[in-house]
């Protein structure tokens, strides 16, 4: 019975999180480098809110003092002031909008840089244990969510508060009694808004879940279209989809209802306020307590008052969503790599390629040992082949030597220094790995060989291209070595990809070469090219090869046969064949035919 893993996946459907002061403070700390800009933006918002309130304040002066008194020059002055404030307000508003975006973008950039740098430096175990898609989301979408908080969010929230304060100030200085009457609708507005927000928010949450459900249904039935068709389930599937689609539509219609009610209600409240102003204020006009101009400006104030109140409640929602994202981001930032560099590292400059495995034990998961008491030593310039069935522990040896993982027990030394005393990067710069699954980056052939390393000269690249027999292929391309490589090299053949990865290793001219030979079959011509290239690759350096080719094995100084995490046999090809042990069987299984054909 095979071991089956049952994984319960957590739902990542976070809809928002209550305000967490610690999280919020940590989020705020990213504002620090931009203190000045933020201070400036805050001053600007206060100015704008003041200016916005000034205009309605000027209207009564224009009408009551100037027009009523037929003071044309006076009117002109007021008009000029009005125009001036208008233009000023526009200009400041523009600067403010841009400045807040600028601050937001800068902080997002800083944060993204930090998260990416942190993640890429985490060790392989982390990448093996976390789905790549999720990590990508942290760096991209999750950070994007924070943009609104960092840009307009907080600064404009200030602005909204100030606008409300200014308007209140002007209203009360004009006429406090009329102000109180006008503001009597305010509690209703606040209440209506909060009810609306609450409903819309939960409705949106439901819509989001339904959209996700619908999308995953579509996705699943596109991926599984063959099953649907082979089992003649098209009709049923469409029916099922229609049900899900219907739920989605109905929920959307519900949210239409909220909007359809809310906007007329807000307008109605506005009208009630205006009605109160006319009715109560009008009465005061008769008693000559209030002027007509004051009434007009109060009508204008009411209109200006409603927007910031609505905006503020929206800001709170944004902040809640941001909390959920930032929690995930900070969680990633708090991850520590279990493979750490020593405090006082030994320089790894004089590595020649003497490697020693001493009683190495290793388990990826606690007691489940993949390597059991493995010891061997490799001398400078030696070529060692590892042979064994899948799961014997061959790749684990590579992982340990490069310190992608640290040994559980025992030690590995290079030039008699425990590799845990080197900086990981120093150690690795002496090693080049050619993996079975060739990974190519999007770019061109050249950038896939030098991997952007400026220290590798064009001459070196040309030489490694020639030595790996890649030159014929490159010369056949119109763009030559600048030939574009798609994501993962999808347009290249398996053989071409392998040769490129060989050229990559050659160009880096490592002291220690690790080669995980690919098993995939290629045509005879390419096979010959690859065999030739491997010869060049391992020439004159310590090489560790997980071999699948007889020709490679035969050219090795020593063969180590691994079986279920233990070393079973060690020796040269001839010695091991004479032994008639495990190697002999493996040889018959994997290499005999090749031998016959050759």
């Amino acid at each position, binding site marked *: 019975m095979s071991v089956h893993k049952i994984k319960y996946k957590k739902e990542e459907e976070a809809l928002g999180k209550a305000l967490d002061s610690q999280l919020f403070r940590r989020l705020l700390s990213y504002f620090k480098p931009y203190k000045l800009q933020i201070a400036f933006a805050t001053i600007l918002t206060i100015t704008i809110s003041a200016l916005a309130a000034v205009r309605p304040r000027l209207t009564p002066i224009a009408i009551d003092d100037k027009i009523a008194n037929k003071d044309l020059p006076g009117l002109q002055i007021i008009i000029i002031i009005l125009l001036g404030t208008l233009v000023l307000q526009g200009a400041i508003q523009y600067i403010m909008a841009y400045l807040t975006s600028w601050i937001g973008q800068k902080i997002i950039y800083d944060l993204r840089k930090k998260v990416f740098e942190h993640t*890429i430096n985490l060790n392989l175990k982390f990448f093996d244990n976390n789905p790549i898609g999720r990590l990508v989301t942290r760096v*991209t979408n999750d950070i994007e969510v924070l943009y609104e908080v960092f840009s307009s969010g907080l600064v404009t929230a200030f602005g909204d508060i100030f606008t409300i304060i200014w308007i209140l100030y002007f209203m009360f200085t004009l006429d406090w009694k009329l102000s109180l009457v006008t503001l009597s609708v305010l509690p209703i507005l606040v209440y209506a808004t909060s009810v609306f927000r609450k409903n819309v928010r939960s409705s949106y949450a439901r819509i989001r879940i339904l959209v996700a459900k619908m999308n995953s249904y579509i996705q699943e039935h596109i991926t599984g279209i063959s099953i649907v068709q082979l089992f003649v389930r098209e009709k049923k599937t469409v029916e099922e989809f229609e049900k899900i689609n219907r739920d989605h*539509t109905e929920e959307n219609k519900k949210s239409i209802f909220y909007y359809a009610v809310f906007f007329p209600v807000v307008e109605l409240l506005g009208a009630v306020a205006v009605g109160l102003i006319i009715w109560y204020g009008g009465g005061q006009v008769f008693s000559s307590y209030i002027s007509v101009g004051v009434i007009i400006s109060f009508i204008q104030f009411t209109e200006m008052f409603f927007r910031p109140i609505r905006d503020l409640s929206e800001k709170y929602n944004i902040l809640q969503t941001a909390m959920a994202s930032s929690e995930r981001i900070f969680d990633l930032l708090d991850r520590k790599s279990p493979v750490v560099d020593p405090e006082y590292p030994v320089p790894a400059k004089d590595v020649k390629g003497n490697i020693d495995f001493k009683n190495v034990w290793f388990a990826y998961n606690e007691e489940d040992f993949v390597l059991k008491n493995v010891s061997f030593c490799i001398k400078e310039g030696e070529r060692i082949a590892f042979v064994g069935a899948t799961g014997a522990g061959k790749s684990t040896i590579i992982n340990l030597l490069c310190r992608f993982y640290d040994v559980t027990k025992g030690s590995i030394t290079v030039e008699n220094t425990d590799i845990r005393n080197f900086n990981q990067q120093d150690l690795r710069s002496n090693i080049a790995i050619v993996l079975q699954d060739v990974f190519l980056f999007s770019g061109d052939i050249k950038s896939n060989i030098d991997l952007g390393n400026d220290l590798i000269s064009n001459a070196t690249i040309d030489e490694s291209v020639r030595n790996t027999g890649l030159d014929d292929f490159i010369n056949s391309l119109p763009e030559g070595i600048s030939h574009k490589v798609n994501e993962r090299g999808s347009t290249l053949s398996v053989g071409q990809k392998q040769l490129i990865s060989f050229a990559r290793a050659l160009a880096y001219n490592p002291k220690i070469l690790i080669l995980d030979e690919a098993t995939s079959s290629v045509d005879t011509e390419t096979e010959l090219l690859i065999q030739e290239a491997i010869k060049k690759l391992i020439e004159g350096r310590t090489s560790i090869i997980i071999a699948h080719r007889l020709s490679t094995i035969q050219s090795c100084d020593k063969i180590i046969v691994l079986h279920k995490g233990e070393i079973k046999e060690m020796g040269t090809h001839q010695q091991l064949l004479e032994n008639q042990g495990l190697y002999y069987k493996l040889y018959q299984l994997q290499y005999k035919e090749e031998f016959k054909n050759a």
Partner: protein
Amino acid sequence: MRDLIPLFPYLKKYKSKIFLGFLFVSVSIFLQSLYPLVIGNAIDDLISKANEELLFKYALLSVGIILTGGFFLFLTRRTIIVASREIENDLRNDFFAHLQKLPKNFYNEKTTGDLMAHATNDINNVRNFLGPGIMYSVQTVLRTIITLIILFSINAEIAVIALVPLPFISYLVYSVMKRTYGRSMKVQEAFSAMTTKVQENFAGIRVIKSYVREKFEIEQFNKISADYQKKNLALARMQAYSFPMMFLLTGLSIIIVIYFGGMKVINGTFTVGNIAEFVVYLGQLTFPMIAFGWVISLVQRAAPAMKRISTIMTTEPGIKDAGKSGINLTAESIRGEIELRKVSFRYPKTEIDILRKVDLKIPAGSTLGIIGYTGSGKSTLINLIPRVFDVTEGEILIDGADIRKISLNELRKSIGIVPQESFLFSDTIANNIAYTGEISEERITDVSKKAGLYKDVNLFPEKFRTILGERGITLSGGQKQRTSIARAIYKEPKILILDDSLSAVDTSTEAEILKELKEVMKGRTSIIISHRISTLQNADNIIVLDGGIIKEQGAHNDLIKLEGIYYNIYMKQLLEEEIKEI
């Protein structure tokens, strides 16, 4: 605009709702246009000192107008916007239903991501045009007309002067929107470039770490991230215009009215109330002017989106169904005799024949084993029988009838196939097994026992009600394969096809399942593809495929005697077993 024509039939279905919506929006606009008149009169009366009772009436009147206007606005949303949601629903249903009809070839050429984008983003863009797009254009046109009439009737001269800035608003909004859209597309591109970069770096982390390229990749990422920031700031510069622009221009109109109107008041040809009216009406015009520019940008987005949707909706299903006009064979009446006559196949747009003139007879009720290297054409061969693809040359007969003349549904109903990659839906195990037909617990238990799945399922707390996939549990490869086998048997097909369906099951479990399956295969034609001799050795006939040609054929013992490809594979597998025993 021509791309939007396919929407007409959809609109027609909801014509009464849309018509009512037009009516409601007209009434609400009309009422709202009256509102400033009331306020203007109220203020004039304040100045001429009319009685208090009248003022109370004005207050009530203004609230009443907004109340009724708001009610009709409510009705508008309940009709037009609801209709747009209904059309979205219909469109998505039709789109999805059409997808179900398209053949494998279509899916080989399209990425899932693209199709998802059509089903979500594109349809959303069309919906935005149908709902808010139509509602706001009606509002805009009506409100503009009514307001203009009123303004001109109050004072034509002031009206002309005051309206000068308004067309500029529309134009500005339109051009800012257009540029904003262009720039936001660029932001999106930069974002996806960044995502690709991160994705690639994390996927290729082994290479990066072993060649010590972390620093370089961080620099590269920062460059891309900086470019993304740059594109965002370019967008922000454009977006920053929108807000000041809006009130700058309305503010301008209001100032114009106060100044010129004020002069007229001084001359005595205009009242202060008139100024108030103008101010409110101009405020009412601003929004339609903004909406106008917005509607245009909605159309610009909807048209290409609809074009992309139409392209897929008009794609013909490649596999032609004979339907009822064909030969009268049903899933029940098919016996299961299969014959391939000179069958050749190549995938469209390729030049290599995957199968070359294959002749093969599978008697009803017999078992055929297929073995061969990857790429030898095994899976292609069995996919031709349920017509996942149609043969390029030659013909395939079932019970002597060309399968292209049998109703597609009946043909497929008669075949139970277990594909190479076991695809299960995120649903309960029971629903996955009883994928065709009614759920019968008894039968589910029965088939899962036969597929060697029963014991495993019983270990789950929810048993057969366990949900699979993203929201549930992940089955092991072997469990998936066995579920997939159970699903195929549940169908009770006349023809059972197993495409390398036991590869993830260990040999002892395999032997158990094969023993059970032997019962199932009685009376059914079975085709089994496998890399393992142990799976095939009891078949009545075994073929060895190589490069699209049948190289060897016969029963297990015959093939061993032949000492050819089959024999070699057999010997190797014996050795493998031996090594494992060590």
